[in-house]
């Protein structure tokens, strides 16, 4: 790698290599956990979700250089706000739909849909 730079370079090779190795390691771990039927799904599901969260953070830090910007850290705040909105959207949808599922039988849903047909 040439060290001659026309402007002070902010990033180096190191974070990309680290991010790449970590991501491959996590991906293959998840893949082997899922494809080898050695473990119960009670154990595998939380581990797989946790490893996805770890890889999300790994890529944000090493590939998108989050947390290395100068203050004020608007990018970080934008990411945190996005995570809040996304959590409300996803968990809210699941909550509402599972509640609806619990309260309505298939017959009720059919009757409701037929009564709304004219609209």
């Amino acid at each position, binding site marked *: *790698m*040439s060290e*001659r*730079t*026309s*402007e002070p*370079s*902010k*990033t*180096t*090779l190191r*974070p*990309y290599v680290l*991010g*790449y190795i970590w*991501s*491959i390691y996590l*991906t*293959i771990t*998840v*893949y082997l956990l*899922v*494809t080898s039927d050695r473990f119960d*799904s009670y154990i*595998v*599901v939380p581990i*797989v*979700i946790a*490893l*996805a969260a770890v*890889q*999300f953070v790994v*890529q*944000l830090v090493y*590939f*998108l250089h989050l947390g290395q910007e100068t203050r004020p850290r*608007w*990018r970080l705040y*934008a*990411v945190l*706000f*996005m995570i809040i*909105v*996304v959590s409300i*959207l*996803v968990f809210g*949808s*699941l909550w509402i*739909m599972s509640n609806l599922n619990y309260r309505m039988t298939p017959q009720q849903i059919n009757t409701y849909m037929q009564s709304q047909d004219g609209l």
Partner: protein
Amino acid sequence: MSQHVATVKEPRLNLAPEASSKVTFGFWIYIMTDCVLFASLFATYAVLHNNTFGGPAGAQLFNMPNVLAETLILLTSSFTTGLGMLAAQQRHLRKVIAWFGVTFVLGASFLTIELSEFSKLVASGNSWQRSGFLSSFFTLVGTHGLHITVGLLWMAILIAKIAATGLTKANVRRLTLLSLFWHFLDIVWIFIFTMVYMLGAI
């Protein structure tokens, strides 16, 4: 080592560094809103993924080695984008074109595997019309594939532009935005890989 330092003058869009960082931040905000789009598709998939309407579930449909190959290809392309950005910071024209060329080839192979999987599903009668599960599956994964297609188109145009006009400040800024977009698509794919393919196969 011969350095291919850009000598082309910058006629337009010659923004000051802070204005350029504002452009990058604006693009970052766009990416965050795209995350919300993907979140709504993930929520739809999470709600509908058991509604197979008597048809096949994910575990019977997904080809796991292909999914792993797609994931590793996209991951590698995210890495080569980073190498391309390092070369851009060093104003090394040939390396930039080479690394983004490699990224383009990797992205195109990802898309090829994905589209061949899609066509196999449709040919075996498991298209988006089969069930609620498959509708939401094709919408979620297809939207990601559409983003990849747009990214590839953008990359091809930008590589041609850089080959023609050199590594001007404006072109380096465009590369920065493209690399943000590409890393973001890789992050979205982690969640598709985990939520759709891995948890779907358990």
